[in-house]
């Protein structure tokens, strides 16, 4: 028999398939148009041939017998499981007809465009929603509690986001002379090796550990890093903010901060009025000062001096701003007010968190906090790498702010081996995330006025171009201030994965006039649709990965039946729904997104990946000194003051506490001892698995064999006390509901906490309602409420609920 000819296509892994935010270089081996093998690309600077289990299982994923390969139209009752295969032409016409009907009767904002996490969809779903006329693009997690809150919170205080520097900005990586390895990395609530690379490729940290980098691990759970850490701080879930304040306390008291960075690059010297607690503005002073300008006390002249935010400099020459002290300032109204500096108010706030108090809140011994804070602050450079738990608390923003203050005041911001500002490579922006202004945007500011939650929550009005999930779901039931009639769900399965209170989600979807789902498999959520459109995996599409660096293309390797890529599906519908739609082909759209890079899609595809050159605003380091961060080319940050803001101007404007602090989460033994009496265990959820991404991959046998059951981890002493043996089925229950999980009796969790797997459904079971693949049986989200978000609308209590655990009786099994 003649040997088959093998083609190898180099591409970039990004959902769908492995699921994750992606970026790994992949070689797809093709024979006769069929995928036979996937390998990591050894030449790719990101992963150097390494690749995860989910990506390696792609041959079983793309040709899975359960894949939806033609559009399906519901023919029975919704949820009944009766479907008819239709052509794409019929499918597009059907969706168009339904959407136009809703638009004509209720307005375009009555359709919500909902996406899953981290997908090569964010840009395309916006393109479709905006072409249709709806500003309501939604990420379906309560409080948007996954990454965009962190990005927004960090952007609020420093104008840009930043991430661990593992040399990913350079093709030569660790060998590049511009790079310095961090002496210490704080891994804050992140079991990254068994998760997705939503910050960076997780195993860069093991690369660095092999070169000598020390680890501080902050995690209630015994993880790979916890076992190998110089310091492991086993904190009570949800108390990260207090711990960060404790770190700041040590660093300030022991003067371990970078005084030059603090005085030159933060708003520490700006004056705060003690009567209002607000920043003193030049507009408050006699004369015609600008309200956008801030005021310092000039220690040389002994009087106030104005910090000109437009010029990012002092109005007078030779100003030496005082960092500390109390000053009487005469205002234009004739009143004299007492003012102090931001630095003093910040110090006072931090002083509210002495280590004995922090130890009591966090359950971490004071000596351990002190030692860890010293190690972090004296390591030069040091970096902080954080995970999902930071977002999954209602106080996400003050927590994030406290942590951002850590890297700022220790001089680790945008320096080699520190936390480096991460921008879209070459400023080629597709994805409508905080701060991004790309090719795909709303047609007018007027259109945005109907966006649900934008007027209520500051960050949504300023940085996050999303509808507020909790408010959307409520609005489906209330119809106020306007009715919600349709939902477009694109590769998201909220019933099993990111939907808190999943029964409420089910009722909400059932109430709608029209539900469309784009997905690769029949999920419990898809079962409630009127139409399902079959999407392509990353191996079946052309696309762009414009998410930090490098800038990459996704290159098509195979075709699978009639599946279409997300961008193609959205493009065709957008073209039909918008007579002014400006692009003729998907390639034209890609070229416009890539315009800033100076490359066309075809040119970038030829290279595979591209790094921005030194001196480009999207390439490090010390860009705040070089004037590379701001549009005006002046040194400083893209914040209202041009400084890193220890006292956040925007949070002040939003009516929120402007300085970092700690807030006890809403359902803990401390905040709700009444509930804790009956539900004494802290319920932590979202246990990550190397086999799965969120609610995906339960149907891929290779992967399922690695992690076959929905587990809850219980400490051996607690299990013994409750009479629970390893591998026994248990009920995990609280006042909101219960679910059935399999006990894993393990020292991974402390005695006072259980850790539950999330994202479970059973694709092998009956799909039609009410079964829905058993998605409610083992769904830990049943025990988590919606609407328990933070004051700024962000975050959700996903990692620190309360529960009790007891054995499933024989007759319930």
């Amino acid at each position, binding site marked *: 028999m003649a040997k088959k000819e093998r083609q190898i296509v180099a591409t970039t892994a990004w959902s769908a398939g492995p699921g994750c935010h992606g970026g790994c270089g992949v070689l797809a081996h093709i024979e006769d148009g069929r995928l036979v093998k*996937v390998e990591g690309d050894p030449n790719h600077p990101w992963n150097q041939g*390494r*690749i995860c289990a989910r990506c390696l299982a792609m041959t079983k994923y793309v040709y899975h017998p359960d894949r939806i390969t033609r559009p399906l139209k519901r023919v029975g009752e919704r949820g009944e499981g009766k479907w008819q295969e239709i052509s794409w032409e019929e499918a597009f016409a059907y969706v168009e007809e339904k959407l136009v009907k809703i638009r004509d009767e209720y307005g375009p904002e009555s359709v919500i465009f909902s996406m899953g996490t981290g997908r090569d969809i964010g840009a395309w779903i916006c393109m479709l929603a905006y072409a249709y006329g709806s500003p309501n693009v939604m990420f379906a997690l309560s409080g948007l509690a996954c990454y965009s809150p962190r990005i927004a919170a960090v952007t609020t205080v420093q104008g840009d986001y930043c991430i661990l520097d593992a040399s990913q900005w350079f093709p030569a990586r660790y060998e590049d002379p511009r790079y310095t390895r961090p002496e210490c990395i704080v891994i804050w609530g992140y079991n990254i090796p068994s998760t997705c690379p939503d910050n960076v490729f*997780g195993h860069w940290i*093991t*690369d660095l550990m*092999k070169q000598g980098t020390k680890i501080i691990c902050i995690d209630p759970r015994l993880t790979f890093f916890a076992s190998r850490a110089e310091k492991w701080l086993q904190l009570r879930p949800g108390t990260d903010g207090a711990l960060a304040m404790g770190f700041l306390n040590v660093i300030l008291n022991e003067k371990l901060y970078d005084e030059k960075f603090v005085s030159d690059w933060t708003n520490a010297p700006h004056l705060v009025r003690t009567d209002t607690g607000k920043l003193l503005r030049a507009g408050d002073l006699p004369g015609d000062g600008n309200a956008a300008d801030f005021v310092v006390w000039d220690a040389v002249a002994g009087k106030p001096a104005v910090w000109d935010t437009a010029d990012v400099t002092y109005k007078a020459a030779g100003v030496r701003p005082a960092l500390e002290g109390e000053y009487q300032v005469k205002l234009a109204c004739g009143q004299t007010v007492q003012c102090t500096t931001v630095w003093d108010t910040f110090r006072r706030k931090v002083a509210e968190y002495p280590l004995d108090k922090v130890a009591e809140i966090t359950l971490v011994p004071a000596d351990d906090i002190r030692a860890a804070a010293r190690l972090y602050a004296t390591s030069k450079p040091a970096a902080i790498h954080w995970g999902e738990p930071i977002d999954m608390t209602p106080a996400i923003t003050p927590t994030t702010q406290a942590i951002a203050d850590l890297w700022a005041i220790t001089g680790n911001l945008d320096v080699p081996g520190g936390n480096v500002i991460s921008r879209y490579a070459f400023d080629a922006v597709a994805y409508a995330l905080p701060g991004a202004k790309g090719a795909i945007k709303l047609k007018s500011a007027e259109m945005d006025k109907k966006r649900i939650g934008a007027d209520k929550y500051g960050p949504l009005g300023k940085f996050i171009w999303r509808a507020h999930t909790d408010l959307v779901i409520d609005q489906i039931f209330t119809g106020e201030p306007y009715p919600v009639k349709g939902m477009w769900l694109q590769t998201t399965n909220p019933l099993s994965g990111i939907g808190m209170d999943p029964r409420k989600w089910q009722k909400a979807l059932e109430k709608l006039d029209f539900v469309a789902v784009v997905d690769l498999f029949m999920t419990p959520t898809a079962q409630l649709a009127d139409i399902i459109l079959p999407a392509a995996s990353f191996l079946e599409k052309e696309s762009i990965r414009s998410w930090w660096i490098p800038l990459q293309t996704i290159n098509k390797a195979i075709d699978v039946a009639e599946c279409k890529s997300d961008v193609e599906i959205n493009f065709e519908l957008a073209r039909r729904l918008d007579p002014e739609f400006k692009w003729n082909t998907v390639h034209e759209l890609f070229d416009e997104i890539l315009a800033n890079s100076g490359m066309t899609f075809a040119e970038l595809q030829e290279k595979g990946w591209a790094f921005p050159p030194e001196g480009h605003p999207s390439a490090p380091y010390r860009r705040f000194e070089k004037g590379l961060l701001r549009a005006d080319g002046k040194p400083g940050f893209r914040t209202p003051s041009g400084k890193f803001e220890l006292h956040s101007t925007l949070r002040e404007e939003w009516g929120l506490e402007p300085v970092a602090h700690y807030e006890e989460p809403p359902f803990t033994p401390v905040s709700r001892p009444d509930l804790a009496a009956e539900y004494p265990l802290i319920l932590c959820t979202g246990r990550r698995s190397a086999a799965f991404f969120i609610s995906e991959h339960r149907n891929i046998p*290779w992967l399922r064999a690695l992690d076959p059951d929905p587990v809850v981890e219980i400490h051996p002493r607690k299990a013994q006390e409750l009479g629970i043996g390893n591998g026994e089925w248990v009920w995990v229950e609280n006042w909101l509901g219960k679910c059935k999980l399999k006990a894993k009796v393990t*020292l991974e969790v402390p005695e006072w906490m259980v850790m539950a797997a999330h994202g479970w459904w059973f694709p092998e079971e009956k799909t039609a309602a009410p079964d829905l693949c058993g998605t409610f049986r083992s769904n830990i989200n049943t025990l988590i409420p919606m609407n328990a978000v933070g004051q700024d609308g962000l975050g959700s209590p996903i990692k620190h609920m309360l529960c009790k655990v007891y054995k499933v009786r024989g007759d319930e099994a």
Partner: protein
Amino acid sequence: MARKNTGYGLLIDYEYCTGCHACEIACAQEYDWPAGMGGMRVTEMIQQLPNDKAYLAYLPFPTELCILCAGRTAKGMKPACVQTCMSACMKHGRVEDLAKEINKPRMALFVPK
């Protein structure tokens, strides 16, 4: 008479194995093993230590099915598990060469074949 080994083995620095299971699926893909079978198996081990401490380790163990990717290595390629290892903590080579590289704690040299 005892069987002779091939003279080749796998050196695993299990201090850095993070339990990502990529080696298992790389092997399954290379030989199209059914779910649950394969030449590599990663075991999670949680060791109870004094003073209520514990240590979490993962050990990638070559099973009875491991043939050290004889076909791949004959072509000068790395075994599938070694090439894919996310933490780059596995190495294939001649046993005597690998033995010389055991220069730190928490390393294991396997001679499966």
